[in-house]
């Protein structure tokens, strides 16, 4: 009964999460609006574009009731320029800009609709691109090119993940801005394991430091001396 999975989303769960992303659909059939558990679904009137969650868009697409309008970043020119950018820096390319007055986060950002910014990879770029290439191959311009560029991007970014392992430390935070959902799911076990392992190695040092600090606080001495305490191992 208890979930037999380790902490952290698995790739399958990440894909499930990705299916909540909104995409733009061009219906080929009429469908009245529906009241669903997660909010109302607008009525579909061909040929008007309608935003729908990905799972529903895929359902409609598989039954040939609609076409999916791929997000602007899923096109050869956009992917090309993002790939060039990725090759030029050691960090991930920046994610799309966030709406200013809200705390919404992926998968509930409009980062995969037809109005999404064309020059940035959203959080679920890999999963979303793969799913669209699989189910809506005919709606994507130059699908083979897109597939090839996606693979290149993935390799470049995976190489960065691997190179980033060198900066991992037990006590410090590691910045991973721009990382994708599937990349987190893949790298979590390794990165988490390394950070946890290094932390355990440094645990006794940390403990003695904590004790010393507590002592200093008790004695009323402003703890300013930080000798022999760098955490690099």
């Amino acid at each position, binding site marked *: 009964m208890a979930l037999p999975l380790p902490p952290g989303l698995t790739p399958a769960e990440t894909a499930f999460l990705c*299916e909540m992303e909104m995409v733009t659909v061009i219906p080929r059939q009429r469908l009245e609006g*529906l*009241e669903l*558990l997660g909010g109302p679904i607008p009525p579909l009137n061909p040929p008007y574009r309608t935003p729908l969650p990905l*799972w529903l868009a895929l359902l409609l697409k598989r039954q040939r009731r609609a076409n999916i309008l791929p997000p602007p970043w899923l096109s050869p020119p956009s992917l090309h320029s993002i790939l060039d950018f990725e090759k030029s820096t050691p960090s991930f390319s920046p994610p799309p800009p966030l709406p200013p007055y809200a705390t919404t986060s992926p998968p509930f950002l409009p980062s995969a609709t037809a109005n999404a910014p064309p020059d940035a990879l959203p959080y679920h770029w890999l999963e979303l691109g793969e799913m669209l290439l699989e189910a809506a191959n005919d709606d994507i311009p130059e699908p083979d090119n897109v597939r090839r560029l996606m693979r290149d991007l993935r390799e470049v970014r995976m190489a960065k993940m691997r190179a980033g392992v060198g900066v991992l430390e037990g006590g410090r935070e590691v910045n*991973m*801005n721009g990382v994708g959902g599937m990349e987190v799911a893949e790298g979590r076990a390794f990165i988490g394991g390394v950070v946890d392992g290094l932390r355990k190695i440094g645990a006794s040092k940390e403990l003695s430091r904590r004790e010393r600090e507590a002592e200093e606080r008790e004695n009323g001495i402003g703890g300013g001396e930080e000798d022999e305490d760098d955490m690099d191992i």
Partner: protein
Amino acid sequence: MDIDDILAEVDSHAIPHETQDLQELTRAWVTERSAPELLPWPDALMERTLERIRRQVRHPPPLAPSPLADTEPLSIKIELVEEQTGNTDPKANFRLIIIQTELERFKYLVRSFLRARIAKIDAHALHHLTDPTAKARLSPSELQYATAHTALLHAHYHSSFLSQFPASLRRMDDTAGGISMVEGPDVDKAVFVRALRDVDEPVYVDGTDTAFEMRRGDVVVVRWSAVRGIVMAGDAELI
């Protein structure tokens, strides 16, 4: 309250309640799946969600040309529709498929959330029954489950081997020698965090020199104990 808060409120009012609840539930699920320790039980949210699922199962939205009464359970309708495939209106049929698919997605979310919690309760049952903060995070039925499960386990251990031990060694929650037998979760485990708002105060990692700032959208890998407060305040989420 400054202008940003007011705008944020206006903004969130534009989203229907159902969608807001879906977003909250999704975030709760991801956080619960990723955090090393049990998080507070989202009482109001779960009640609303379960009630909505119950309603959807019992009274699905009226199907336009349906020959059936609205009061019948969805399952009966589905069976009937399945039986009549071919001679019912294919449109009504398809609407049912959409409703059923969404319902299954919701049920999966709730189920996975509850099972993730049970896994944590099982792993550290005694900790969740003895530690007051941990105990306060259990829902009533989880508390009942943990209590009953621990009692059964104790009785079983006792009858199979603990009764052979000297009386002083039979306890499961011994604290002799300054070390408690009751193990809690490892709160220093590394987690992936994403900031949802700018965090004003720098985040300190206990016992090290590390202090860092978090801006909205930042993703960092850091130990859970350093960001626990921020995540529980809703300023950041686990991914």
